[in-house]
């Protein structure tokens, strides 16, 4: 006999509780949208370093979006997949510079937008380019268009692009760089003038199929594509911000291609999955040690030069990049117009000369300086070697690591007064397809914005203006080399490296990357005989 008491009441008991929570959990699980997992049937599964925020060309904010946009949209020109920044025709069958402010183009007839939005026309080119600078739209990438003015349409397929003033970076940055990808006027208007992660139409070799937030974007072969044949029926682009997670996913067989961290290259060399290979690509990222010349401790150029000579860049690159990267000679990476073959201060430096410079400057040692750095494992390793290098010449360095958001504000005048206090900082950014984008951040006008060194040089500013106003490549090459000479001679910079981007890839895949390491999905091919 069981006596009915409050303790054993049947109204609510353990079973009811468990049954309820289980049902609730299953109901929630059933409500979740999802993805298909690694069904490899002529599919490419690849990691992207972050999720997509927008696939609207003037609003794309990361290279991760550019990777997808390159596969689903067409531009007049696109970059070749030969490891250079050279361009080739894409939607255009003809593209030529008429003069420094005019470019003529003619589209290939018969290229169709998806979703029934018709043929690509010169009017769509006009719409797409002019939309990027539309002041009412306030596009995030408007700056890419430089002094672009308008497009004059000649006929259904031809037109002329007009610039207000010469802008040498127009073709690589605006036209081939993705901001001026061609969208259908009708489609974008139908979407309300702007769209986010679901493009209203595509015209590239792949079509957008779906985007799942924080998960992946799925592309599929465009049946109407009339350009060079593409390899895969589907491409699954996974948003994976954690590089270690992507390494594991590759090892677990869920990815065909993934960027890995530099420190993992040794592991993969020793324990490479049997059907895979490791390839080291350039990253196009510029790493350097910056010195705030307006800070009292660094106002004497001899102190800055002592730091330049004191830092052993070879040791930094060996320790942080495991010898995979090369010391850089300036912000312009190898293979790009304006690259310097060598720097004035050799990578190994010279501690004796550094010490002599400090003595000459009358500095009492040890000199104590603070070094700000982004809280990133690779960069922290680099600054620790710099700390060790400088200790040898009598400079004690205190490292202050900060999260990326905080770090990016330390040299900015609009973010408080801390720009006055920064001394040394380890900085990096990805340049673009043109040397202009590697160097423009150091002009006097950028002081307190991105020029944290407070470097200011009239000749540098003048050369920057001249180099962007001419399309004579030899002249530009000379100007940009000279600009990097000036930077280095100011003592404000110790150039470190342009980094690397190691990728692990299935043997069945022949990948294609831009010189800055971003994937050119449309040019990924199966290895011969594999499909």
């Amino acid at each position, binding site marked *: 006999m069981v006596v009915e008491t409050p303790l054993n009441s049947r109204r609510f008991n353990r079973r009811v509780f468990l049954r309820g929570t289980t049902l609730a959990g299953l109901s929630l699980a059933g409500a*979740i949208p999802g993805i298909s997992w690694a069904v490899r049937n002529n599919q490419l599964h690849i990691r992207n370093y972050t999720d997509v925020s927008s696939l609207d060309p003037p609003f794309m904010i990361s290279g991760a979006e550019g990777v997808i946009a390159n596969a689903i949209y067409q531009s007049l020109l696109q970059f070749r997949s030969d490891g250079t920044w050279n361009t080739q025709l894409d939607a255009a069958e003809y593209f030529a510079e008429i003069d420094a402010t005019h470019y003529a183009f003619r589209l290939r007839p018969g290229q169709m937008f998806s979703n029934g939005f018709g043929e690509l026309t010169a009017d769509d080119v006009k719409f797409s380019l002019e939309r990027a600078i539309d002041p009412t739209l306030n596009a995030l990438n408007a700056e890419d268009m430089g002094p672009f003015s308008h497009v004059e349409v000649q006929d259904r397929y031809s037109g002329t692009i007009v610039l207000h003033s010469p802008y040498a970076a127009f073709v690589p940055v605006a036209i081939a760089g993705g901001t001026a990808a061609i969208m259908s006027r009708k489609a974008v208007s139908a979407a309300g003038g702007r769209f986010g*992660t679901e493009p209203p139409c595509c015209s590239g070799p792949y079509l957008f199929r779906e985007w799942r937030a924080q998960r992946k974007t799925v592309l599929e072969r465009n049946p109407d594509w009339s350009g060079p044949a593409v390899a895969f029926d589907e491409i699954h682009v996974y948003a994976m911000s954690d590089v270690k997670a992507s390494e594991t*996913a590759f090892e677990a067989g*869920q990815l065909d291609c993934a960027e890995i961290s530099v420190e993992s290259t040794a592991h993969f060399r020793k324990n490479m999955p049997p059907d895979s290979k490791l390839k080291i690509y350039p990253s196009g990222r510029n790493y350097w040690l910056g010195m705030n010349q307006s800070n009292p401790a660094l106002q004497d150029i001899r102190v800055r030069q002592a730091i330049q000579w004191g830092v052993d860049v070879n040791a930094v690159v060996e320790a942080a990049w495991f010898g995979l990267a090369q010391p850089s000679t300036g912000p312009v990476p190898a293979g790009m117009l304006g690259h310097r073959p060598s720097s004035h201060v050799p990578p190994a430096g010279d501690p004796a000369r550094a010490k002599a410079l400090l003595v000459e400057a009358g500095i009492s040692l040890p000199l104590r300086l603070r070094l700000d750095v982004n809280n990133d494992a690779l960069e922290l390793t680099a600054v620790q070697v710099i700390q060790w290098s400088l200790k040898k010449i009598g400079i004690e360095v205190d490292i202050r690591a900060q999260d990326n958001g905080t770090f990016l504000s330390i040299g900015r005048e609009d*973010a408080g007064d801390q720009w006055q206090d920064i001394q040394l900082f380890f900085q990096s950014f990805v340049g673009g397809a043109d040397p202009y984008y590697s160097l423009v951040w150091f002009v006097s006008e950028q002081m307190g914005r991105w020029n944290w060194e407070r470097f200011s040089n009239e000749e540098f500013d003048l050369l920057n203006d001249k180099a962007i106003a001419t399309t004579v490549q030899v002249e530009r090459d000379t100007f940009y080399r000279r600009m990097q000479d000036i930077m280095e001679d100011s003592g404000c910079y110790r150039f470190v490296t342009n980094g690397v981007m190691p990728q692990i890839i299935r043997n069945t895949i022949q990948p294609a990357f831009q010189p800055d390491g971003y994937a050119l999905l449309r040019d990924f091919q199966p290895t011969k005989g594999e499909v």
Partner: protein
Amino acid sequence: MLEYVIRRSGLALVILLLAVTLLFAMIHMMPGDPASILLGPKASPELKAALNQRMGLDQPLLVQLARFYADLAQGDLGTDVFSNRPVLEMVLEQLPYTIVLVLAAIGGASLVGIPLGCYSAIRHNSLLDRLVGVMSVAFIAIPSFVIALYLLLLLSVKWRWFPAMGAGDSGDIVDQARHLVLPALALGLGWVGYIARLVRTSMLEVMEENHIRTARAFGLSERTIIVHYALRIAVLPTVTILGLGIGTMLSGALFAEIVFSRPGIGKLLHEGVLTRNYPVVMGSVLMTTAFFVLCTLISDVINAMLDPRVRDGESS
């Protein structure tokens, strides 16, 4: 009971508002702005000003907070200026993944931990009790990220039993469950030991109480006494702890979502903080806090339902 629930709900609302206000202030005190972080050098002063205006960041903090609550009252969490998507939509898209993960982890831990603890108490000082004790301490002591990594390496990379990333196919419960196993294990394994220890201790206390002796004197079977009389009381502290444990699990979920590349509110929040995407951060924080407060409320109510002394004590 109704009065108790109303009183608790009111308190939960106050806690929610307080937590969100505090977090609002903290988030806005962080240095850095979204335009500079996401656009880098492209973030011209004009563009930054325009973005700040669209995000309402050009207004005083109190005005921003008032606007946030005014919009919230209308069910609007703002718009992500970069993707141009409503934050509410973004958050609601991700929240179920986290809830499922947390419930799976805590549910799994309870399903294993409670019987283990109960059995250990009944057979205390037996070999199994000692074994459970050692295992429990080991599970509690090993950080969940270590467990997660080893699970990944063994079960996913080496044996390929379970996927290493993602959340599974929509509408396919089996596939979703396969994707849930490793993250839920990583998140919940430590709790198995914790719950087992807690239940064991409570059970040992309860088994010594008068009403159990009375039940034995009535000749009730040992099974009935344990299940209907002892465990019901012994599980009360565990229910409270599980409610609070949801908070810990939500923090752990962030880690699991990153390691297993699983969508979820933690990942959304993490990226929002890194990029200073304030509307997304606030939306995620609000929803996460609401979920935590709700879980605490539910655990309080369950406690009150299981033990009248709780609600009676509260009333008096």
